[in-house]
Protein backbone atom coordinates (compact mmCIF):
# COMPACT_ATOMS: atom_id res chain seq x y z
CA UNK A 1 0.00 0.00 0.00
CA UNK A 2 2.78 2.38 0.89
CA UNK A 3 4.52 1.45 -2.33
CA UNK A 4 1.48 2.37 -4.38
CA UNK A 5 1.05 5.64 -2.53
CA UNK A 6 4.61 6.71 -3.09
CA UNK A 7 4.60 5.73 -6.73
CA UNK A 8 1.85 7.63 -8.46
CA UNK A 9 1.85 5.33 -11.51
CA UNK A 10 0.78 2.27 -9.62
CA UNK A 11 -1.56 4.37 -7.43
CA UNK A 12 -3.67 5.45 -10.39
CA UNK A 13 -3.87 1.92 -11.62
CA UNK A 14 -4.63 0.64 -8.16
CA UNK A 15 -7.65 2.93 -7.79
CA UNK A 16 -8.80 2.10 -11.30
CA UNK A 17 -8.40 -1.58 -10.67
CA UNK A 18 -10.33 -1.31 -7.42
CA UNK A 19 -13.30 0.11 -9.27
CA UNK A 20 -13.33 -2.81 -11.65
CA UNK A 21 -13.00 -5.71 -9.30
CA UNK A 22 -12.97 -4.96 -5.62
CA UNK A 23 -12.93 -8.61 -4.62
CA UNK A 24 -9.58 -9.52 -6.19
CA UNK A 25 -7.21 -6.91 -4.77
CA UNK A 26 -3.98 -7.96 -6.47
CA UNK A 27 -1.13 -5.50 -6.90
CA UNK A 28 -0.82 -5.08 -10.65
CA UNK A 29 2.72 -4.19 -11.54
CA UNK A 30 2.48 -1.61 -14.24
CA UNK A 31 5.09 -1.83 -16.92
CA UNK A 32 7.19 1.18 -17.84
CA UNK A 33 5.61 2.19 -21.09
CA UNK A 34 8.08 2.78 -23.84
CA UNK A 35 8.37 6.55 -24.07
CA UNK A 36 9.79 7.09 -27.55
CA UNK A 37 11.95 9.99 -28.50
CA UNK A 38 9.93 12.61 -30.41
CA UNK A 39 10.35 12.09 -34.14
CA UNK A 40 11.26 15.46 -35.58
CA UNK A 41 9.75 14.90 -38.99
CA UNK A 42 9.28 18.59 -39.96
CA UNK A 43 5.91 17.87 -41.54
CA UNK A 44 5.06 21.59 -41.71
CA UNK A 45 8.02 22.47 -43.91
CA UNK A 46 8.88 19.38 -45.94
CA UNK A 47 11.97 19.60 -48.11
CA UNK A 48 11.30 17.87 -51.42
CA UNK A 49 14.24 18.38 -53.80
CA UNK A 50 13.63 19.62 -57.32
CA UNK A 51 14.38 16.72 -59.66
CA UNK A 52 14.83 18.86 -62.79
CA UNK A 53 17.17 21.48 -61.38
CA UNK A 54 20.91 20.97 -61.83
CA UNK A 55 21.69 22.53 -58.48
CA UNK A 56 20.30 19.64 -56.44
CA UNK A 57 23.04 17.11 -55.66
CA UNK A 58 22.92 13.76 -57.47
CA UNK A 59 22.29 11.74 -54.35
CA UNK A 60 19.04 13.59 -53.76
CA UNK A 61 17.66 12.31 -57.06
CA UNK A 62 18.14 8.59 -56.33
CA UNK A 63 15.35 6.13 -55.65
CA UNK A 64 16.74 5.45 -52.16
CA UNK A 65 16.39 9.12 -51.21
CA UNK A 66 12.85 9.13 -52.59
CA UNK A 67 11.99 6.22 -50.35
CA UNK A 68 13.45 8.08 -47.38
CA UNK A 69 11.37 11.14 -48.28
CA UNK A 70 8.27 9.02 -48.37
CA UNK A 71 9.25 7.47 -45.06
CA UNK A 72 9.52 10.89 -43.45
CA UNK A 73 6.64 12.83 -45.05
CA UNK A 74 4.29 10.18 -46.39
CA UNK A 75 1.98 11.36 -49.14
CA UNK A 76 3.08 14.97 -48.55
CA UNK A 77 6.29 14.15 -50.40
CA UNK A 78 4.27 13.72 -53.60
CA UNK A 79 5.72 10.33 -54.50
CA UNK A 80 3.95 7.35 -55.98
CA UNK A 81 4.09 4.69 -53.23
CA UNK A 82 4.25 1.92 -55.84
CA UNK A 83 7.87 2.94 -56.46
CA UNK A 84 8.84 1.82 -52.97
CA UNK A 85 8.75 -1.82 -54.03
CA UNK A 86 11.22 -3.28 -56.52
CA UNK A 87 10.23 -3.29 -60.19
CA UNK A 88 9.74 -6.56 -62.04
CA UNK A 89 13.27 -6.51 -63.45
CA UNK A 90 14.81 -5.79 -60.06
CA UNK A 91 12.61 -8.45 -58.50
CA UNK A 92 13.84 -11.02 -61.02
CA UNK A 93 17.42 -10.15 -60.13
CA UNK A 94 16.65 -10.50 -56.46
CA UNK A 95 15.00 -13.87 -56.96
CA UNK A 96 17.91 -15.26 -59.00
CA UNK A 97 20.39 -14.01 -56.41
CA UNK A 98 18.41 -15.62 -53.63
CA UNK A 99 18.16 -18.89 -55.49
CA UNK A 100 21.91 -18.93 -55.97
CA UNK A 101 23.05 -17.83 -52.54
CA UNK A 102 20.28 -18.95 -50.22
CA UNK A 103 19.38 -22.62 -50.66
CA UNK A 104 16.12 -23.84 -49.24
CA UNK A 105 15.85 -25.69 -45.96
CA UNK A 106 15.43 -29.08 -47.60
CA UNK A 107 18.57 -28.63 -49.69
CA UNK A 108 20.55 -27.58 -46.62
CA UNK A 109 19.30 -30.51 -44.59
CA UNK A 110 20.24 -32.87 -47.40
CA UNK A 111 23.73 -31.39 -47.59
CA UNK A 112 24.12 -31.75 -43.86
CA UNK A 113 23.03 -35.37 -44.06
CA UNK A 114 25.48 -36.09 -46.85
CA UNK A 115 28.32 -34.48 -44.94
CA UNK A 116 27.49 -36.40 -41.80
CA UNK A 117 27.31 -39.64 -43.73
CA UNK A 118 30.69 -38.95 -45.31
CA UNK A 119 32.20 -38.18 -41.94
CA UNK A 120 30.82 -41.31 -40.31
CA UNK A 121 32.00 -43.39 -43.27
CA UNK A 122 35.51 -42.01 -42.93
CA UNK A 123 35.54 -42.54 -39.22
CA UNK A 124 34.24 -46.07 -39.53
CA UNK A 125 36.74 -46.94 -42.26
CA UNK A 126 39.53 -45.67 -40.03
CA UNK A 127 38.21 -47.65 -37.10
CA UNK A 128 37.96 -50.80 -39.20
CA UNK A 129 41.53 -50.36 -40.37
CA UNK A 130 42.68 -49.89 -36.80
CA UNK A 131 40.76 -52.97 -35.66
CA UNK A 132 42.22 -55.11 -38.46
CA UNK A 133 45.73 -53.96 -37.68
CA UNK A 134 45.24 -54.54 -33.98
CA UNK A 135 44.06 -58.06 -34.73
CA UNK A 136 47.32 -58.66 -36.58
CA UNK A 137 49.33 -57.31 -33.68
CA UNK A 138 49.78 -60.47 -31.52
CA UNK A 139 51.16 -62.38 -34.49
CA UNK A 140 53.43 -59.50 -35.45
CA UNK A 141 54.66 -59.19 -31.89
CA UNK A 142 55.39 -62.91 -31.70
CA UNK A 143 57.20 -62.80 -35.04
CA UNK A 144 59.30 -59.88 -33.99
CA UNK A 145 60.20 -61.52 -30.73
CA UNK A 146 61.11 -64.72 -32.50
CA UNK A 147 63.29 -62.87 -34.97
CA UNK A 148 65.06 -61.06 -32.20
CA UNK A 149 65.63 -64.31 -30.35
CA UNK A 150 66.96 -65.97 -33.50
CA UNK A 151 69.25 -63.08 -34.26
CA UNK A 152 70.60 -63.24 -30.73
CA UNK A 153 71.03 -66.96 -30.97
CA UNK A 154 72.81 -66.63 -34.31
CA UNK A 155 75.10 -64.06 -32.85
CA UNK A 156 75.90 -66.36 -29.97
CA UNK A 157 76.49 -69.28 -32.35
CA UNK A 158 78.81 -67.22 -34.51
CA UNK A 159 80.76 -66.12 -31.51
CA UNK A 160 81.02 -69.70 -30.26
CA UNK A 161 82.20 -70.89 -33.67
CA UNK A 162 84.82 -68.20 -33.84
CA UNK A 163 86.03 -69.05 -30.37
CA UNK A 164 86.35 -72.71 -31.40
CA UNK A 165 88.28 -71.85 -34.55
CA UNK A 166 90.60 -69.61 -32.55
CA UNK A 167 91.14 -72.41 -30.08
CA UNK A 168 91.91 -74.90 -32.88
CA UNK A 169 94.25 -72.38 -34.51
CA UNK A 170 95.91 -71.80 -31.17
CA UNK A 171 96.52 -75.53 -30.79
CA UNK A 172 97.82 -75.88 -34.31
CA UNK A 173 100.16 -72.93 -34.40
CA UNK A 174 101.07 -72.79 -30.73
CA UNK A 175 100.38 -69.05 -30.27
CA UNK A 176 97.36 -66.70 -30.44
CA UNK A 177 96.76 -66.07 -34.10
CA UNK A 178 95.16 -62.91 -35.37
CA UNK A 179 91.95 -63.97 -37.09
CA UNK A 180 92.68 -61.58 -39.92
CA UNK A 181 96.03 -63.12 -40.83
CA UNK A 182 96.29 -65.32 -43.98
CA UNK A 183 97.45 -68.35 -41.97
CA UNK A 184 94.28 -68.33 -39.97
CA UNK A 185 92.19 -67.96 -43.12
CA UNK A 186 93.94 -70.95 -44.77
CA UNK A 187 93.27 -73.01 -41.69
CA UNK A 188 89.61 -72.02 -41.73
CA UNK A 189 89.35 -72.99 -45.44
CA UNK A 190 90.92 -76.44 -44.69
CA UNK A 191 88.48 -77.07 -41.87
CA UNK A 192 85.56 -76.15 -44.07
CA UNK A 193 86.73 -78.52 -46.82
CA UNK A 194 86.97 -81.37 -44.37
CA UNK A 195 83.51 -80.55 -43.04
CA UNK A 196 82.09 -80.62 -46.56
CA UNK A 197 83.61 -83.98 -47.32
CA UNK A 198 82.21 -85.36 -44.13
CA UNK A 199 78.77 -84.03 -44.95
CA UNK A 200 78.86 -85.56 -48.42
CA UNK A 201 79.80 -88.93 -46.98
CA UNK A 202 76.99 -88.62 -44.44
CA UNK A 203 74.50 -87.80 -47.18
CA UNK A 204 75.53 -90.78 -49.24
CA UNK A 205 75.25 -93.04 -46.28
CA UNK A 206 71.81 -91.68 -45.45
CA UNK A 207 70.67 -92.15 -49.04
CA UNK A 208 71.92 -95.71 -49.03
CA UNK A 209 70.06 -96.43 -45.78
CA UNK A 210 66.88 -94.90 -47.14
CA UNK A 211 67.09 -96.89 -50.36
CA UNK A 212 67.69 -100.08 -48.38
CA UNK A 213 65.04 -99.38 -45.72
CA UNK A 214 61.93 -98.97 -47.96
CA UNK A 215 62.95 -101.95 -50.10
CA UNK A 216 63.32 -104.40 -47.27
CA UNK A 217 60.06 -103.74 -45.31
CA UNK A 218 57.80 -104.26 -48.37
CA UNK A 219 59.76 -107.40 -49.08
CA UNK A 220 59.25 -108.41 -45.43
CA UNK A 221 55.49 -107.66 -45.41
CA UNK A 222 54.62 -109.11 -48.80
Amino acid at each position, binding site marked *: *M*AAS*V*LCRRTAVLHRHFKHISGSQCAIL*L*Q*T*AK*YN*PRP*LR*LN*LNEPYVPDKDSTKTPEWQKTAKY*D*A*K*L*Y*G*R*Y*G*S*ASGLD*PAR*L*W*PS*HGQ*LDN*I*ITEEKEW*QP*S*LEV*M*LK*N*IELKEKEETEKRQAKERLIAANMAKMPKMVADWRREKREAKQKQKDDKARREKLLAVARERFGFAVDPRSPKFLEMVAEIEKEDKKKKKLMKRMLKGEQAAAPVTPPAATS
Partner: protein
Amino acid sequence: MSFPKKPGGKALDVLQNLPRISLANMRPEPGAGRTSKRRGRGQHGGNRSGRGHKGERQRGNRPRLGFEGGQTPFYLVIPKYGFNEGQSRRPQYQPLSLKRLQYLIDVGRVDTTQPVDLTQLVNGRGVTIQPLKKDYGVQLVDEGADIFAAKINIEVQRASEGAIAAIERNGGVITTTFYDPISLGILIKPVPFFLRGQPIPKRMLPGQDMVPYYTDAENRGYLADPEKIQQARLALAQKYGYILPDLSKDELYHMLSTRKDVRQIFFGLAPGWVVNMSEKKILKPTDEKLLQYYSS
Protein backbone atom coordinates in the same frame (compact mmCIF):
# COMPACT_ATOMS: atom_id res chain seq x y z
CA MET B 1 -14.83 9.16 16.05
CA SER B 2 -11.22 8.68 15.02
CA PHE B 3 -9.94 9.48 11.59
CA PRO B 4 -8.41 6.53 9.78
CA LYS B 5 -4.68 7.06 10.15
CA LYS B 6 -3.20 8.30 6.87
CA PRO B 7 -0.56 5.91 5.72
CA GLY B 8 2.89 7.47 5.40
CA GLY B 9 2.17 10.07 8.05
CA LYS B 10 4.73 12.77 8.66
CA ALA B 11 7.10 11.36 6.11
CA LEU B 12 4.48 11.86 3.43
CA ASP B 13 3.85 15.42 4.61
CA VAL B 14 7.54 16.14 4.40
CA LEU B 15 7.77 14.70 0.94
CA GLN B 16 4.83 16.67 -0.33
CA ASN B 17 5.75 20.03 1.15
CA LEU B 18 9.53 20.27 0.78
CA PRO B 19 10.95 22.12 -2.23
CA ARG B 20 12.16 20.17 -5.24
CA ILE B 21 15.50 18.43 -5.06
CA SER B 22 18.34 20.21 -6.81
CA LEU B 23 22.10 20.35 -6.55
CA ALA B 24 21.79 23.27 -4.11
CA ASN B 25 20.06 21.30 -1.36
CA MET B 26 21.95 17.99 -1.57
CA ARG B 27 25.19 16.91 -0.04
CA PRO B 28 26.92 13.53 0.07
CA GLU B 29 26.85 11.25 3.11
CA PRO B 30 29.78 11.75 5.53
CA GLY B 31 32.46 9.35 4.47
CA ALA B 32 31.20 9.07 0.90
CA GLY B 33 34.10 10.64 -0.97
CA ARG B 34 37.68 9.53 -0.77
CA THR B 35 40.25 12.33 -1.16
CA SER B 36 42.71 11.50 -3.88
CA LYS B 37 46.43 11.43 -3.46
CA ARG B 38 48.15 14.64 -4.48
CA ARG B 39 51.62 14.23 -5.90
CA GLY B 40 54.51 16.58 -5.21
CA ARG B 41 53.27 17.84 -1.81
CA GLY B 42 55.42 15.74 0.51
CA GLN B 43 58.37 16.59 2.79
CA HIS B 44 61.20 18.51 1.07
CA GLY B 45 58.78 19.88 -1.49
CA GLY B 46 57.66 16.56 -2.89
CA ASN B 47 61.00 16.18 -4.72
CA ARG B 48 60.45 13.59 -7.44
CA SER B 49 56.67 13.16 -6.94
CA GLY B 50 56.87 9.38 -6.78
CA ARG B 51 58.55 9.07 -10.20
CA GLY B 52 61.90 7.60 -9.15
CA HIS B 53 65.41 8.81 -9.98
CA LYS B 54 66.35 10.04 -13.49
CA GLY B 55 66.12 7.77 -16.47
CA GLU B 56 63.10 6.83 -18.55
CA ARG B 57 60.99 6.27 -15.44
CA GLN B 58 61.23 9.85 -14.22
CA ARG B 59 61.22 11.39 -17.67
CA GLY B 60 58.19 9.42 -18.82
CA ASN B 61 59.91 7.83 -21.83
CA ARG B 62 59.46 4.17 -21.05
CA PRO B 63 59.10 1.89 -24.08
CA ARG B 64 55.86 0.19 -25.09
CA LEU B 65 54.26 -2.59 -23.11
CA GLY B 66 55.91 -5.93 -23.85
CA PHE B 67 59.29 -4.52 -24.88
CA GLU B 68 62.12 -6.44 -23.26
CA GLY B 69 65.07 -4.20 -23.99
CA GLY B 70 65.67 -5.64 -27.47
CA GLN B 71 65.35 -9.32 -26.58
CA THR B 72 62.61 -10.93 -28.66
CA PRO B 73 59.61 -10.34 -26.44
CA PHE B 74 57.44 -13.15 -25.09
CA TYR B 75 54.47 -12.25 -27.28
CA LEU B 76 56.64 -12.68 -30.41
CA VAL B 77 58.64 -15.70 -29.29
CA ILE B 78 55.56 -17.88 -28.97
CA PRO B 79 54.54 -19.10 -32.45
CA LYS B 80 51.04 -18.51 -33.77
CA TYR B 81 48.45 -21.27 -33.73
CA GLY B 82 44.94 -21.10 -35.08
CA PHE B 83 43.15 -20.46 -31.78
CA ASN B 84 41.98 -17.02 -32.88
CA GLU B 85 41.60 -17.82 -36.55
CA GLY B 86 38.43 -16.38 -38.02
CA GLN B 87 37.77 -14.74 -34.64
CA SER B 88 36.46 -11.56 -36.17
CA ARG B 89 33.97 -13.48 -38.29
CA ARG B 90 32.50 -15.64 -35.54
CA PRO B 91 28.91 -14.87 -34.49
CA GLN B 92 28.58 -13.33 -31.04
CA TYR B 93 25.57 -13.43 -28.76
CA GLN B 94 25.08 -10.85 -26.03
CA PRO B 95 24.48 -12.74 -22.77
CA LEU B 96 21.32 -12.09 -20.80
CA SER B 97 21.20 -13.70 -17.39
CA LEU B 98 17.95 -14.85 -15.86
CA LYS B 99 18.79 -12.64 -12.90
CA ARG B 100 18.77 -9.56 -15.13
CA LEU B 101 15.63 -10.71 -16.88
CA GLN B 102 13.89 -11.11 -13.54
CA TYR B 103 15.08 -7.64 -12.54
CA LEU B 104 13.72 -6.14 -15.76
CA ILE B 105 10.38 -7.85 -15.25
CA ASP B 106 10.15 -6.79 -11.60
CA VAL B 107 10.99 -3.20 -12.33
CA GLY B 108 8.53 -3.18 -15.20
CA ARG B 109 10.83 -2.59 -18.14
CA VAL B 110 9.71 -5.78 -19.89
CA ASP B 111 6.02 -6.54 -20.26
CA THR B 112 5.26 -10.18 -19.56
CA THR B 113 1.64 -10.00 -20.74
CA GLN B 114 2.91 -9.90 -24.34
CA PRO B 115 5.48 -12.16 -26.03
CA VAL B 116 8.98 -10.97 -25.16
CA ASP B 117 11.04 -10.33 -28.22
CA LEU B 118 14.48 -8.84 -28.81
CA THR B 119 12.71 -5.57 -29.69
CA GLN B 120 11.02 -5.54 -26.25
CA LEU B 121 14.32 -6.22 -24.53
CA VAL B 122 16.07 -3.43 -26.41
CA ASN B 123 13.19 -1.03 -25.83
CA GLY B 124 13.42 -1.70 -22.13
CA ARG B 125 17.17 -1.14 -22.44
CA GLY B 126 17.79 -4.57 -20.98
CA VAL B 127 20.45 -5.52 -23.55
CA THR B 128 22.49 -3.63 -26.10
CA ILE B 129 23.00 -5.37 -29.42
CA GLN B 130 25.55 -4.21 -32.01
CA PRO B 131 24.84 -6.00 -35.31
CA LEU B 132 27.88 -4.40 -36.90
CA LYS B 133 30.14 -6.06 -34.33
CA LYS B 134 29.04 -9.54 -35.51
CA ASP B 135 26.33 -9.73 -32.83
CA TYR B 136 23.71 -12.18 -34.01
CA GLY B 137 21.37 -11.65 -31.10
CA VAL B 138 21.03 -12.46 -27.44
CA GLN B 139 21.74 -15.64 -25.52
CA LEU B 140 20.04 -16.71 -22.31
CA VAL B 141 22.44 -17.67 -19.56
CA ASP B 142 21.34 -19.62 -16.51
CA GLU B 143 22.77 -17.37 -13.82
CA GLY B 144 19.84 -16.69 -11.51
CA ALA B 145 17.91 -19.77 -12.50
CA ASP B 146 17.13 -20.50 -8.86
CA ILE B 147 15.44 -17.13 -8.25
CA PHE B 148 13.67 -16.87 -11.58
CA ALA B 149 9.87 -16.87 -11.17
CA ALA B 150 8.06 -15.40 -14.15
CA LYS B 151 5.80 -16.92 -16.76
CA ILE B 152 6.86 -15.47 -20.11
CA ASN B 153 6.87 -16.27 -23.78
CA ILE B 154 10.42 -15.38 -24.73
CA GLU B 155 12.30 -15.56 -27.98
CA VAL B 156 16.10 -15.52 -27.97
CA GLN B 157 18.84 -16.59 -30.32
CA ARG B 158 20.64 -19.04 -28.03
CA ALA B 159 19.78 -20.53 -24.69
CA SER B 160 21.56 -22.81 -22.28
CA GLU B 161 19.81 -25.92 -21.03
CA GLY B 162 19.50 -24.57 -17.48
CA ALA B 163 17.86 -21.39 -18.73
CA ILE B 164 15.34 -23.36 -20.82
CA ALA B 165 14.54 -25.51 -17.78
CA ALA B 166 14.09 -22.47 -15.54
CA ILE B 167 11.66 -20.81 -17.95
CA GLU B 168 9.63 -23.93 -18.58
CA ARG B 169 9.49 -24.78 -14.91
CA ASN B 170 7.60 -21.53 -14.33
CA GLY B 171 5.12 -22.34 -17.06
CA GLY B 172 6.70 -20.20 -19.77
CA VAL B 173 7.65 -20.84 -23.36
CA ILE B 174 11.09 -20.32 -24.89
CA THR B 175 12.02 -20.41 -28.56
CA THR B 176 15.37 -19.95 -30.23
CA THR B 177 15.18 -18.12 -33.55
CA PHE B 178 17.64 -16.88 -36.11
CA TYR B 179 17.92 -13.35 -37.47
CA ASP B 180 20.33 -12.55 -40.25
CA PRO B 181 22.31 -9.33 -39.66
CA ILE B 182 20.03 -7.09 -41.76
CA SER B 183 16.89 -8.39 -40.06
CA LEU B 184 18.59 -7.98 -36.71
CA GLY B 185 19.39 -4.35 -37.42
CA ILE B 186 15.76 -3.79 -38.34
CA LEU B 187 14.52 -5.68 -35.28
CA ILE B 188 16.46 -3.69 -32.72
CA LYS B 189 15.74 -0.30 -34.29
CA PRO B 190 12.36 -0.52 -35.98
CA VAL B 191 11.52 3.19 -36.12
CA PRO B 192 14.62 4.30 -38.04
CA PHE B 193 13.94 1.44 -40.44
CA PHE B 194 10.35 2.55 -41.03
CA LEU B 195 11.61 6.08 -41.73
CA ARG B 196 13.71 4.65 -44.54
CA GLY B 197 10.55 3.88 -46.49
CA GLN B 198 11.63 0.37 -47.46
CA PRO B 199 9.33 -2.64 -47.42
CA ILE B 200 9.92 -5.05 -44.54
CA PRO B 201 12.28 -7.72 -45.90
CA LYS B 202 11.97 -11.47 -45.51
CA ARG B 203 13.99 -12.97 -42.72
CA MET B 204 16.65 -15.23 -44.21
CA LEU B 205 17.20 -18.83 -43.11
CA PRO B 206 20.25 -19.67 -41.02
CA GLY B 207 23.44 -20.81 -42.74
CA GLN B 208 24.23 -24.46 -43.11
CA ASP B 209 26.36 -24.45 -39.97
CA MET B 210 23.53 -23.16 -37.80
CA VAL B 211 20.72 -25.26 -39.28
CA PRO B 212 21.44 -28.26 -37.00
CA TYR B 213 21.18 -25.98 -33.95
CA TYR B 214 17.84 -24.50 -34.96
CA THR B 215 16.29 -27.79 -36.10
CA ASP B 216 17.12 -29.42 -32.77
CA ALA B 217 14.25 -29.80 -30.32
CA GLU B 218 16.69 -29.80 -27.38
CA ASN B 219 17.47 -26.15 -28.13
CA ARG B 220 13.77 -25.35 -28.78
CA GLY B 221 14.73 -24.26 -32.28
CA TYR B 222 12.11 -22.52 -34.39
CA LEU B 223 12.64 -24.97 -37.26
CA ALA B 224 12.19 -28.04 -35.08
CA ASP B 225 9.26 -30.43 -34.98
CA PRO B 226 6.61 -29.35 -32.43
CA GLU B 227 6.06 -32.93 -31.25
CA LYS B 228 9.74 -33.41 -30.64
CA ILE B 229 9.75 -30.14 -28.70
CA GLN B 230 6.99 -31.49 -26.44
CA GLN B 231 8.99 -34.66 -25.86
CA ALA B 232 12.09 -32.61 -25.14
CA ARG B 233 10.10 -30.54 -22.61
CA LEU B 234 9.06 -33.69 -20.78
CA ALA B 235 12.59 -35.08 -20.86
CA LEU B 236 14.01 -31.83 -19.50
CA ALA B 237 11.42 -31.76 -16.72
CA GLN B 238 12.45 -35.26 -15.73
CA LYS B 239 16.12 -34.38 -15.90
CA TYR B 240 15.85 -31.27 -13.73
CA GLY B 241 13.21 -32.69 -11.43
CA TYR B 242 10.15 -30.47 -11.78
CA ILE B 243 6.60 -31.13 -12.91
CA LEU B 244 5.98 -29.68 -16.35
CA PRO B 245 2.94 -27.38 -16.09
CA ASP B 246 0.26 -28.04 -18.67
CA LEU B 247 0.05 -25.01 -20.94
CA SER B 248 -3.21 -25.89 -22.66
CA LYS B 249 -5.08 -25.30 -19.39
CA ASP B 250 -3.41 -21.95 -18.87
CA GLU B 251 -5.46 -18.77 -19.18
CA LEU B 252 -2.63 -17.12 -21.12
CA TYR B 253 -2.35 -20.05 -23.51
CA HIS B 254 -3.09 -17.93 -26.56
CA MET B 255 -0.35 -15.43 -25.71
CA LEU B 256 2.13 -18.17 -24.80
CA SER B 257 1.59 -20.04 -28.02
CA THR B 258 2.05 -17.03 -30.35
CA ARG B 259 5.16 -17.52 -32.39
CA LYS B 260 6.55 -15.77 -35.39
CA ASP B 261 6.53 -17.25 -38.85
CA VAL B 262 9.91 -18.36 -40.20
CA ARG B 263 10.13 -15.33 -42.53
CA GLN B 264 8.53 -12.81 -40.21
CA ILE B 265 10.50 -10.13 -38.40
CA PHE B 266 7.80 -8.34 -36.39
CA PHE B 267 4.72 -9.67 -34.69
CA GLY B 268 1.70 -8.57 -36.67
CA LEU B 269 3.65 -7.29 -39.68
CA ALA B 270 4.34 -9.42 -42.71
CA PRO B 271 7.30 -9.08 -45.07
CA GLY B 272 6.60 -6.73 -47.96
CA TRP B 273 4.60 -4.19 -46.00
CA VAL B 274 5.65 -0.55 -45.79
CA VAL B 275 4.98 1.17 -42.48
CA ASN B 276 4.67 4.95 -42.63
CA MET B 277 5.27 6.74 -39.33
CA SER B 278 4.14 10.24 -40.33
CA GLU B 279 0.68 9.18 -41.48
CA LYS B 280 0.48 6.06 -39.28
CA LYS B 281 -0.44 3.89 -42.24
CA ILE B 282 0.59 0.47 -43.48
CA LEU B 283 0.95 -0.03 -47.24
CA LYS B 284 0.69 -3.53 -48.63
CA PRO B 285 1.71 -4.62 -52.13
CA THR B 286 -0.94 -5.88 -54.50
CA ASP B 287 1.22 -7.15 -57.37
CA GLU B 288 1.04 -10.92 -57.66
CA LYS B 289 4.72 -11.37 -58.29
CA LEU B 290 5.63 -9.30 -55.26
CA LEU B 291 3.13 -11.13 -53.11
CA GLN B 292 4.50 -14.46 -54.27
CA TYR B 293 8.05 -13.36 -53.54
CA TYR B 294 7.27 -12.04 -50.10
CA SER B 295 5.25 -15.05 -49.07
CA SER B 296 7.74 -17.67 -50.29
